[in-house]
């Protein structure tokens, strides 16, 4: 019983991480058909924003010493700010470019951010102690669940509910839903396109920063490559969720987390090192049977 519960929490926590990241990608894809591959580097940047530039192995803490109620908004603001900046400086120029061009621009931007971090911090992973109180385990029905896992799951659910309320209940959310479905028509009706797109980037960046906080606390290291794996999984989640479908991205994110966790348990020990190959194999299977994704967004097929 205890170990089953452990697996369920592991799956939900990993899935939460993927879902948050996939949501960040789907939000931007929804309003401007951009697959933002720089998303993973925004995650890494948000963690490094807590440190002073140095190439030493030991991190020189800067904002990381702030109390949590200042530290969390600080990191979220960094993620949102960098993301909005990337829209203003880079992506705005590609508004009329085709999606492939925008995607390549996002790869390039990702490399710029990553090598900027490399320059300031070197490629050596640094150990950091981010919100150390969260690594304590909590005993639930015989299973020892890290407090961080519980918080990750709770935060993800809260973010999802908050986002649903935001999209349904606010004027900005309404404009964003309309723009995500048919950007041209929304613009013709007077929806303020630049504001909606900046809002999507800000939200997406804040989600990246939330992942940065979770990953940083979980692993206790800051690594310039730390966003890459999450980004790849999140991208896959948005594809199998149906590009542009927010619900699909979240669903697929949780599904990927569950599949990865279950594989970790049921695969023979010798094969566990190749877990991700099995996960990607499962993804290929899903796409063979549902090439349009689990929940396909209509907007990807017809644009006016």
């Amino acid at each position, binding site marked *: 019983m205890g170990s089953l519960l452990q697996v369920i929490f592991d799956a939900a926590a990993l899935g939460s991480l993927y879902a948050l990241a996939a949501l960040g990608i789907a939000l931007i894809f929804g309003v401007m058909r951009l697959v933002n591959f720089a998303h993973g580097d925004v995650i890494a940047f948000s963690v490094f924003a807590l440190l002073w530039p140095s190439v030493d192995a030991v991190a020189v803490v800067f904002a990381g010493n702030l109390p949590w109620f200042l530290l969390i908004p600080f990191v979220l603001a960094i993620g949102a700010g960098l993301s909005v900046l990337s829209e203003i400086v880079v992506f705005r120029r590609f508004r009329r470019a085709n999606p492939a061009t925008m995607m390549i621009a996002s790869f390039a931007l990702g490399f710029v951010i990553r090598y900027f971090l490399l320059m300031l911090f070197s490629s050596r992973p640094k150990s950091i102690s981010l919100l150390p109180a969260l690594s304590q385990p909590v005993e639930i029905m015989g299973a020892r669940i890290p407090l961080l896992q519980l918080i990750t799951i709770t935060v993800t659910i809260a973010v999802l509910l908050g986002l649903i309320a935001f999209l349904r209940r*606010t*004027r900005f959310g*309404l*404009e964003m*839903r*309309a723009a995500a*479905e*048919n950007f041209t*028509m*929304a*613009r*013709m*009706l*007077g*929806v303020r396109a630049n504001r909606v797109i900046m809002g999507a980037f800000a939200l997406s960046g804040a989600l990246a920063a939330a992942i940065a906080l979770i990953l940083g606390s979980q692993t206790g290291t800051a690594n310039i490559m730390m966003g890459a794996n999450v980004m790849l999984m999140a991208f896959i989640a948005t594809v199998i969720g149906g590009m542009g479908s927010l619900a699909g991205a979240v669903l697929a994110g949780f599904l990927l987390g569950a599949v990865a966790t279950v594989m970790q348990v049921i695969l023979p020990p010798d094969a566990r090192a190749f877990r991700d190959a099995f996960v990607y194999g499962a993804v290929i299977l899903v796409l063979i049977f549902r090439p349009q994704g689990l929940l396909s*967004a*209509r*907007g990807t097929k017809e644009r*006016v």
Partner: protein
Amino acid sequence: MSQLHADKVSVAFAGLRALSEVDLTVSPGQIVGLIGPNGAGKTTLVNVLTGFQAPTEGAVRLDGQPLSNLKPHELRRRGIARTFQGGRLFRDLPVIDNLEVTGVGLGQSRAAAIAEATAMLEWVGIAPLGDRIAGTLPYTDERRVAIGRALMGKPSFVLLDEPAAGMSAQEAAELADLIRRIAGEMGCGVLLIEHNVGLVLDLCHHIVVLDSGAVIETGGPAAIRASERVRHAYMGTAADSHLPVLEVSA
């Protein structure tokens, strides 16, 4: 007296003339029909009047003032609204949100947009459909949503691009009632582009006939019915299924 006026509008696409020196005026409360064979330039004219297409020569005037280089949403804010062939709703959004986002786009507060959207659905006769996802609606209801969306913010002019396409006689008659109310009750000037010539002759105060980008006839329904040139234009496209409609009503 406010008027929407196409003043000697010409449009050329890569040297090909789509419209040449077209004159057309719509006044408040008036229903003007725009007919003509396929490819006559009807939709191009609507695009020019709503800012989707810049005229190569000539101008669009509102109350005599030229509206040059204004974007569609700027013209929309000045009271020139339109519908599109095939509706073009936000298909994944509920019906009410389709209207609401238009209100918000026009600068209304969310609360004001909700209030007007609710009243508008009632007015066009689809109040119970507010929460339905727009993409799941039958064809005729979809058209009403599109018209409701165009009427948000009480525009002075509304341009309806083939609203009756594919409708049965009964459905077209219901649509005609709605269009009469738009002109009569709202005092809105209506430009009706239709293939259903019978509907246009029935409904419009004034009719403009386009053929190959030029106005070949204007006048009231009786004059259009009697016109040799109109008959000839439609005969020119003998395969056109709309010919019998004209003959029956003539």
